[in-house]
């Protein structure tokens, strides 16, 4: 046994080589290149120059336009995260109470959005959300609104569509935490005199915090870095950071500026994720183990 163990010593490295190559080649290298690109100078006439400068960063950090852009993206991601939390947590609790056969069915329904191509799904939504689309017809028919609501090419539309596709991530994260909970704890709370609502609020929910947090991080990150949905649903009227980066790269051809925005987006997302993680871990220290 010992002998075979020794002979296989190099195997773990060898086996992780493909994954490592993929990781370095497709993530680390492009990220580093983007970082370097963002420090290159750019001239409207002559294009990208080889000289290095901090100009793009200074430009972004001194221009109110970019602050607004980042703020809009941040609020959009936060909104999507909060809505996913509010819908996803109760949905997961309901799901866990279902019979196994129904659970399977509803999991397919919940994971459905992930099974459909982003373009097909987004175009489907844009049909639903248009001025004469189904959503507006229903709202008008019910008399909720008097005139068609602007859903397409609006922030509301983006948030609806992002929530639809990102909700599964929240549900999966909360579900996996829920499975690890002691299923007698709610019964214990009931026997001690807590009603059903109090039991969920005081006993179940705090223990779900790790799942809610990791789900929120995934949803927030994916919202902030989403491109297809804001581009197709928001169009030119609602600009977010990712669509701004796209414009710099492909319309203004100012690659270094686009790269600088991309780097700042990454820094911003990492800062939010790490910050909220720290905060939650301190607040709910005992359930993170």
């Amino acid at each position, binding site marked *: 046994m010992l002998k075979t163990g020794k002979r296989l010593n190099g195997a773990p490295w060898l086996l992780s080589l493909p994954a490592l190559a993929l990781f370095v080649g497709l993530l680390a290298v492009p990220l580093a290149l983007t970082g370097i690109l963002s420090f290159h100078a750019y001239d409207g006439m002559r294009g990208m120059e080889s000289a290095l400068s901090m100009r793009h960063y200074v430009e972004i950090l001194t221009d109110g336009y970019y602050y607004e852009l980042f703020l809009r993206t941040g609020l959009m991601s936060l909104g999507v995260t909060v809505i996913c939390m509010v819908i996803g947590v109760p949905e997961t609790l309901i799901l866990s109470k279902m019979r196994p056969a129904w659970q399977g069915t509803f999991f397919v329904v919940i994971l459905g959005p992930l099974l459909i191509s982003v373009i097909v799904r987004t175009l489907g939504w844009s049909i639903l959300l248009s001025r004469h689309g189904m959503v507006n017809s229903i709202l008008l028919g019910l008399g909720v609104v008097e005139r068609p609501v602007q859903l397409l090419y609006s922030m509301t539309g983006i948030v609806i569509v992002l929530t639809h596709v990102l909700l599964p991530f929240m549900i999966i994260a909360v579900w996996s935490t829920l499975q690890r909970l002691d299923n007698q704890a709610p019964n214990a709370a009931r026997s001690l005199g807590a009603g059903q609502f*109090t039991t969920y609020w005081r006993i179940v929910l705090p223990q779900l915090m790790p799942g809610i947090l990791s789900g929120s991080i995934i949803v927030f990150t994916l919202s902030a870095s989403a491109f297809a949905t804001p581009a197709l649903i928001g169009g030119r009227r609602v600009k977010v950071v990712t669509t701004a980066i796209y414009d710099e790269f492909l319309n203004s051809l100012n690659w270094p500026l686009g790269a600088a925005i991309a780097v700042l987006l990454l820094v911003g997302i990492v800062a939010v994720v790490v910050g909220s993680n720290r905060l939650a871990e301190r607040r709910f220290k005992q359930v993170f183990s």
Partner: protein
Amino acid sequence: MSNLSLRGLSKTYAGQIHAVQGLDLEVAQGEFLSLLGPSGCGKTTTLQMVAGFIPPTEGSVVVEGRDMTRVAPEKRDMGVVFQSYALFPHMSVAQNVGFGLEMRKVKKSELQDRIDEALSMVRLSGLEDRYPRELSGGQRQRVAIARALAIRPKVLLLDEPMSNLDAKLRSEMHVELRALQRRLGITAILVTHDQVEAMTMSDRIAVMSNGCIAQLGSPIEVYDKPASEFALRFLGHANIIAGGISSRDGRNAVIHVGSIEFTADIGGHSDGADVKLFIRPERLRICSADKGVAKGRVVASLFLGGFWIFEIESEIGKLRATLQNLGTVQPCEGDEVGITWNAADLRVVAHETANA
């Protein structure tokens, strides 16, 4: 007057799986009753119905004369200690113990005293600010007991509370929990598959099998006068001897097993040529090979400190005998020995009841 009564309590799943079938049970105030049985016998389902976590299909749960069958678990005033302890990991020991009091809107001034009182009952004073994961298994269990007792429940329900403790701690807790229950005079129901636990702690034991009570009685009654082969086998070890009746004179009969003949009291045994008898291992005696009722050979001898266990291949079947370690010379494996017993210790195995 009984404190808790179960009347015709039944639970049927999917219309055909009978987890519990028409259970009738009266538990007196301050009594400690165990539901003892193998897994799947319906003992935990019964407890869950008493606690209100599972609605019964039929029958009722009555506490102090009040029908609780349709009452929500939070309104039943029952303290439950779970197998997993089910402590709230995000709350400190004091918060765990105080949770039930908080739900009962106990005044702030009184709250601290009640928590202290509950923790001192289980000898955990000083650990108020710890969190469950900072405690040992034994301490967690004590918190669970304190939490259940803090609300001063009408009935204490214990769902295999000792199964996660090591053997030594378990036997200590048996004594301690029993003493605590006596001191508080609280009615308690224990669910367990451990016959030692049931016997050391209970006033009465209900042996359960297939959703029914196979036998109900004090530990001594259940052990010495098992009502069925099931109860007999489940509580301790029993040597079962199957023989034929050679002749019968009222209660007494001459039994033959092969060429061996001996007499036994078979009172209560209905007519028939064959009879099943049992004798507990501690009632068998080992003597020299020529003096016993039957001869046998020791095939295994196990030394357990306080006593020996001998496995004997004998003329009347495979037998197990236990002997106290009194310093006398004991037979070795391979020795030919004689086996004898007091006639009164050999008893007829009671017939299985129809549904056991």
